[in-house]
């Protein structure tokens, strides 16, 4: 049984890595801006479309194939810089201090707009650009074959997790962000430019979503509807970990991915339900997620 489960778990961890990128972006934006961005999944799929298009273009233009690796990261950065500041400056900034209902609706409106824009720009056909995965090849450990790309994904996720931690704890900008999270008014009174912090945090969130999308393209390809599917999964993971918790998102994405693998192994009919069942179970016991501190209800 272990022989069959180990490859499944590697697969699960690679999936967890992809979910982690999106969920941590969502959670980061929520912790700083206090806004749940319903359009976050669309930014994931836009990142995926851009990366896939650039990847295909590199191959078609006859450029060296290794260029597809930096292209993945650069596509994500491009998407983040193109969308992050603009969206935060206009739509998101308008909703600060408004009720959650308004915030959810405004980002839902943005979600609808972005979904159609993707269809117009990239069409409705699925796009596959698996050059990076083919380049990395496979490796055989203990008689089991692994995709090197999946192992690389897991490594990258760990690197991003550590990088984010260091960024928030050590860098000046990171510390300012943490101050804004801890107390918005006091940090404003201390002279921190909160508007700038919001924009940085939102753009960073978009970058993480787009990175997740870009990294996913070599393994799965992109098709319409990806954004909506990713969105709920990212919600589930961010909520399980506790909204606003970076490490929580990491742990939760592993939990969700493992739950999915166990479901596939023991009860195949339940594999799509597994993430949401875990979410329900966790939230009913701990409404603020596994790692969330959360204020108690007012009464």
């Amino acid at each position, binding site marked *: 049984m272990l022989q069959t489960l180990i490859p499944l778990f590697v697969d699960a961890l690679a999936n967890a890595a992809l979910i982690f990128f999106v969920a941590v972006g969502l959670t980061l934006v929520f912790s700083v801006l206090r806004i749940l961005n319903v359009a976050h999944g669309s930014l994931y799929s836009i990142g995926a479309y851009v990366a896939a298009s650039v990847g295909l273009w590199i191959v078609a233009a006859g450029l060296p194939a290794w260029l597809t690796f930096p292209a993945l990261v650069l596509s994500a950065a491009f998407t983040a810089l193109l969308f992050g500041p603009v969206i935060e400056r206009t739509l998101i900034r308008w909703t600060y201090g408004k*009720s*959650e209902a308004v915030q*959810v609706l405004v980002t839902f409106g943005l979600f609808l*707009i972005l979904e159609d824009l993707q269809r*117009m720009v990239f069409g409705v056909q699925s796009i596959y650009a698996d050059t990076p995965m083919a380049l990395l090849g496979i490796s055989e450990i203990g008689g089991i074959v692994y995709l090197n790309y999946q192992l690389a994904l897991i490594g990258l996720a760990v690197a991003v997790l550590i990088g984010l931690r260091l960024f928030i704890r050590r860098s000046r900008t990171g510390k300012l962000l943490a101050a804004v999270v801890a107390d918005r008014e006091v940090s404003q009174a201390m002279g921190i430019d909160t508007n700038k912090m919001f924009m940085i945090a939102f753009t960073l969130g978009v970058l993480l979503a787009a990175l997740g999308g870009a990294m996913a393209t070599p393994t799965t390809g992109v098709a319409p509807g990806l954004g909506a599917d990713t969105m709920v999964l990212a919600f589930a993971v961010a909520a399980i970990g506790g909204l606003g918790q970076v490490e929580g998102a990491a742990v939760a994405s592993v939990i969700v991915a493992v739950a999915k693998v166990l479901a596939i192994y023991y009860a195949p009919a339940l594999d799509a339900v597994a993430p949401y069942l875990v979410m329900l179970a966790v*939230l*009913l016991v701990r409404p603020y997620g596994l790692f969330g501190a959360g204020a108690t209800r007012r009464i």
Partner: protein
Amino acid sequence: MRALPLILAAGLALLALAPLAAPYLQFVLTVAVAKGFAALGVALLLRAGLISLGHAMFFAVGAYAAAFLAQAVGINDFLLLLPFAVAVSALAGLLVGAFLVRYRAIFFAMLNLAVSMVAYALASKLYSITGGTDGLRIDVPTLMGMSLEKAQFDQALYYISLVLLAVVGWLVHRYLKSPLGQALAAVHTNEVRLEYLGVSAWSTLLAAYTISAALAGIGGAIAAVAIGHVLPEYAFWTESGHLVLTAVLGGIAGIAGPFVGSIFLELIHTVAVGYAAEAWNLIVGVALLAVIFFLPRGLFGLIESAAGVKDHRGETEL
């Protein structure tokens, strides 16, 4: 203020006459009224400041309940399907609500989303019961034992929906004016004060949640027999988002708002399909943002202003 009931009556009469002028509108309007019921349910919760991103689930529960009774059990009379669907979705609302109305704000929204996605995933996976992603088909039901042609039944269904709209709308109106309904708005304004007054926020919200689920169930049952086919997509989270959107677009102030929003959207949809089918979500998204930015009381707020209704003491804006 007096002009309002007249405007509502005129609107209903217009709806009743519309298919005579343009027969193809009948189906569009039936579906619009069905979705309007679900949007009304969402609007009730919005009055309490609670946003549900999972209410399409109860719409789907109503639709599946009707389909199940008709196909699996074999009782296929609309006047039995409808109460059964409403009862099942109200029961589902009571059960789910008992857990969820403890939560507020974003947690309420997300838990609803989670429950609805469980329902969606189960509906698409449990092939033997729900027909999986193929869904369930409903044959044209009988009406009080009379078997009708498809066209006749659709016509009857439309006018039954309109009668339901008037009757249920009036009942919900009475509910909102009752102490239980007034307490609902008070949850939004000041929940602590409400509890100090000795009113349980939990039971107030549970009542509202159950009613809203039942309303969505009415819509689901109507849509199921009108379309003749039930799919898991009815419960997908974007559908829930559309219900919230419909409610806000129309306005959550009164009973009419969500229906105005729903009819408006379906009519625009019918027109837009011809010109810009691939830009439909884009149009709706922009319209939603425009309404939130410029018309916080929704489209119905416009009608109300025209009728001279000025102030709702802030309880009807988001």
